[in-house]
């Protein structure tokens, strides 16, 4: 499985939950804490994100940044970067 990671700008997030609804992996939930605006913000609650970017596409406040694991090169041990 491709692994992803998201970071959420917690002071920008308004806790609208649209990212939570949009996530096919159910990776996201709301925090127990509140931010300075008084909202519970979105957080990763499971380490099963695939980096599909659905959450970032629906976020009205552009609070989400998404990273994805680079595709491993088959048959090679540890991944090496080869200059073009």
């Amino acid at each position, binding site marked *: 499985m491709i692994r992803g*990671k998201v970071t959420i700008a917690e002071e920008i997030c308004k*806790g609208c939950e649209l990212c939570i609804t949009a996530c096919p992996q159910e990776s996201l939930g709301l925090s127990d804490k509140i931010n300075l605006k008084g909202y519970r913000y979105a957080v990763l609650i499971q380490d099963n994100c695939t980096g599909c970017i659905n959450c970032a596409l629906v976020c009205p406040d552009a609070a989400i940044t998404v990273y994805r694991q680079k595709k491993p090169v088959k048959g090679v041990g540890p991944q090496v970067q080869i200059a073009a």
Partner: protein
Amino acid sequence: MDLPPITNGFELVYQKPQTLTETPMHYCPGCGHGVVHRVLMEVIDEMGLQDRTIGVAPVGCSVFAYEYMNIDVQEAAHGRASAVATGIKRVLPDRVVFSYQGDGDLAAIGTAETIHTVNRGENILMLFINNGVYGMTGGQMAPTTLLGMKTTTSPYGRETSLAGYPLKITELLAQLPGSYYVTRQAAHTAAAVRKLKKAVQLSLQYQLLNKGTCFIEVVSNCPSGWKMTPTESNKWLEANMFPIYPLGDLKTPAQPMN
């Protein structure tokens, strides 16, 4: 923006477009305006048009759109965005010009400007955010309000005998020879956002080719005006807005009138 260090083996696959400013948006939680702003700025970024794009902001919730878009933006009087955009595009034809309006702005007080801009085939992109109410002023009935829909000025639901029918202004504009590309999109799911982005890309490409008016309606939500949570509002949108305002292209160069 402070980005965390990229963890070993991970690459960045999505980040907020650079042309969207760092200013936190004032919109209510879950409001579609923010998504449309982001998509628009993303396309402008990707097409390298930041320094030659001029937007025209409306009166409505998106009145402060210029705070969030790091491009030149002119504020227009209520309903007059497309007329202002006309003037800008005619004086500066090498700029990419768009107007951005809500349904109260574009389809109520600005109906005349809207129809005549499209009828003249002005070479601009008109973005129309249809959330079925006047969001900014507290959720009053708009021309686009659905029959039976409760608003602060139709507390028992919109009734035809008193308020007529939901105005399908996009269908109307597609009839005009001046419109080149007319489409109806949404911004409530990842798939819808991807399609909306394509429509914006296409519209700006057509504008660069001087093809005439491109018009994109975005059927959107107003969680506060509709008195729903954002997730409920998106479900309601699919169940109630889409049957009256079906998504898809109304007019394309390949199918000029369908």
